[in-house]
């Protein structure tokens, strides 16, 4: 059995894993870098180990050995999908809370994973090694070792292909140390729908339903929900079966995610498999009652899955919004600074997975995600209303953020209808801009109140004139 787990990650996901470990009575170890010495995840556990960086498997193993951890949870990002950490764990006799090294390897290779799925009878997006026929354009150039939109190019015409391949290769080499790219058919208006799967060491594999991830910016998800408004029960069942077949083809053990694209014609295609816990796993937990981190730890300890496929069912509707330190109104540029005021929402059906607290410094070293706001309600409409309420109660000052933008998206008619695809933002460019720049009198009064406090005593009368911050960049 597992007695002590080192979490090879930071921020909200490290804290979220610590929470389950504590509930299970398992000790936890945090790792942190110089830049993260004052980070919240370091304060959220009893034992800590300082490291140089989060992506050196040797350092992670040494930290685990020094702290006496018998297992490592990689979280997401960093080393979670690198076979180097799982194989180093095997050599060191430490349990890796994730799939086998060979599964990570074959699923990490976007070409090999597709070949494997094709053999298993799972539909895949058409792919070419060389030049596709002209009739197949537009196509996407994608990195073999990649994800997250890096090393990816949309090509409209064959004449632009060689230049796009060179650019994507360069980007892929910088981002992943692997310059290999391939060409994939570009689907014009697909939805991005993924299935959570769980597999144990005894060969049992189940799916834990879908997550709708079509609302994206720069190829990164910003709002996820489950169930997907696009799936009728029959289609859900077919995709779920395909997801289990995909996991079986990969000899999958532990928690993983099978990503599909769904075409408007109802055809779906395997895109890739993520061999780790997803950022958006919480919406699955909210609608099924499962704790996916707990399942991961039980599976890694050699236990059977806690539920069978027929025992699982979804209740209600859950939505997640990713709160980023970024400015949607200025082309989503990331922002940095100190979080001066931080008041997350609370109330029925609200969950917050947060990596920061008031006073936290948001730097440029790591991903600008501050927190994940997750709501649950009995229906999709009720979940939307709850998310709107929660976002409008969420206070973050000191660092620019996307909360108001998320509120505009969630409040839009296009979102409410549920009829959207991955082009959602391209079709609704107005959502990028604030609905109004008018400053209400109360805000001017509050601004001058602060001035009164710092510059004058009570009883003094004066007039202040204020203008919008949009006028002067600061």
């Amino acid at each position, binding site marked *: 059995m597992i007695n002590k787990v080192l979490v090879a990650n930071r921020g909200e996901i490290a804290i979220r894993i610590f929470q389950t470990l504590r509930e299970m009575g398992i000790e936890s170890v945090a790792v942190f870098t110089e830049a993260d010495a004052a980070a919240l995840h370091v304060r959220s556990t009893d034992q800590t180990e300082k490291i140089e960086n989060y992506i050196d498997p040797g350092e992670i193993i040494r930290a685990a050995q020094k702290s006496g951890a018998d297992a490592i949870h990689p979280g997401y990002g960093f080393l979670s999908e690198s076979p180097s950490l799982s194989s180093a764990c095997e050599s060191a006799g430490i349990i890796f809370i994730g799939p086998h090294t060979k599964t990570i390897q074959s699923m990490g290779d976007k070409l090999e994973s597709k070949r494997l799925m094709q053999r298993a009878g799972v539909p895949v997006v058409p792919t070419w090694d060389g030049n596709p026929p002209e009739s197949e354009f537009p196509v996407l150039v994608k990195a073999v070792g990649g994800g997250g939109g890096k090393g990816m190019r949309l090509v409209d015409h064959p004449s632009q292909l060689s230049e796009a391949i060179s650019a994507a290769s360069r980007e892929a080499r910088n981002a992943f140390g692997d310059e290999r790219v391939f060409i994939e058919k570009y689907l014009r208006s697909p939805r991005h729908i993924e299935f959570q799967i769980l597999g144990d060491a005894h060969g049992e594999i189940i799916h834990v339903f879908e997550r709708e991830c079509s609302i994206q910016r720069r190829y990164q998800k910003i709002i996820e929900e489950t169930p997907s408004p696009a799936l009728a029960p029959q289609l859900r069942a077919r995709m779920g079966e395909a997801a289990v077949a995909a996991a079986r083809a990969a000899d999958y053990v532990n928690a993983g995610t099978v990503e599909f694209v769904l075409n408007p014609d109802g055809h779906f295609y395997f895109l890739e498999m993520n061999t780790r816990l997803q950022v958006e796993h919480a919406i699955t937990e909210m609608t099924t009652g499962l704790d996916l981190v707990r399942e991961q730890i039980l599976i890694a300890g050699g236990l059977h899955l806690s539920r069978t496929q027929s025992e699982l069912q979804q209740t209600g509707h859950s939505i997640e919004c990713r709160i980023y330190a970024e400015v949607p109104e*200025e*082309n989503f*540029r*990331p*922002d*940095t600074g100190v979080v*001066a*005021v931080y*008041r997350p929402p609370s109330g029925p059906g609200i969950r917050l997975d947060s990596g920061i607290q008031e006073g936290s410094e948001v730097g*440029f070293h790591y991903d600008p995600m501050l927190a994940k706001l997750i709501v649950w309600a009995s229906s999709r409409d009720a979940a939307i209303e709850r998310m709107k309420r929660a*976002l*409008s*109660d969420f*206070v*973050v*000052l*000191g660092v620019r953020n996307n*909360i*108001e933008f998320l*509120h505009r998206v969630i409040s839009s008619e296009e979102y409410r209808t549920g009829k959207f695809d991955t082009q959602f933002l391209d079709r609704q460019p107005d959502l990028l801009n604030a609905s109004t720049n*008018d*400053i*209400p*009198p*109360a*805000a*001017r*009064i*509050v*601004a*001058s*109140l*602060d*001035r*009164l*406090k*710092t510059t004058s*005593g*009570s*009883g*003094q*009368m*004066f*007039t*202040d*004139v*204020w*203008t*919008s*911050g*949009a*006028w*002067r*960049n*600061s």
Partner: protein
Amino acid sequence: MTDEIHWESANHGMLRLDGRTIGFTIHDRDATGGWIEIDGKSQRFYVHRKRDLVEVWLGGRTYRLVQIRKGQESHDSGEVRALMPGRIRRIEVSAGERVAARQPLVIMESMKMETTLAAPADGTVAGVKCQVGQTVEMGELLVVIVRSTSEQL
């Protein structure tokens, strides 16, 4: 639209708006915020001051305000500053040029991303304070714009 705010004590004052005079009161003020009552209606607020920028959270929105000093209203100048450390990639305007609100002024590269700094309002470029290729710090002055017409008091 600007308005006149008269403080009569530390937590009470009068607002003159469109010819009307409205009383307001601040309740339960602490280090980060409080409640503001205007016309009998109370709203939660939070406030954070960073140099001459004030962020005010009110009713689910964050307003970013910068003070204009008395006498500046008619020949208002806007300073466009670097939003983060980085390098100047391109400069799209030169001194004396008329610009429209949102027109790109300077393209910066920081953290491997390009950011376009745009004109905050219609006006004239009073000066370009940076050069292509230059490395700049956050907050460094890049371009000065003089607003063509000012909002009236």
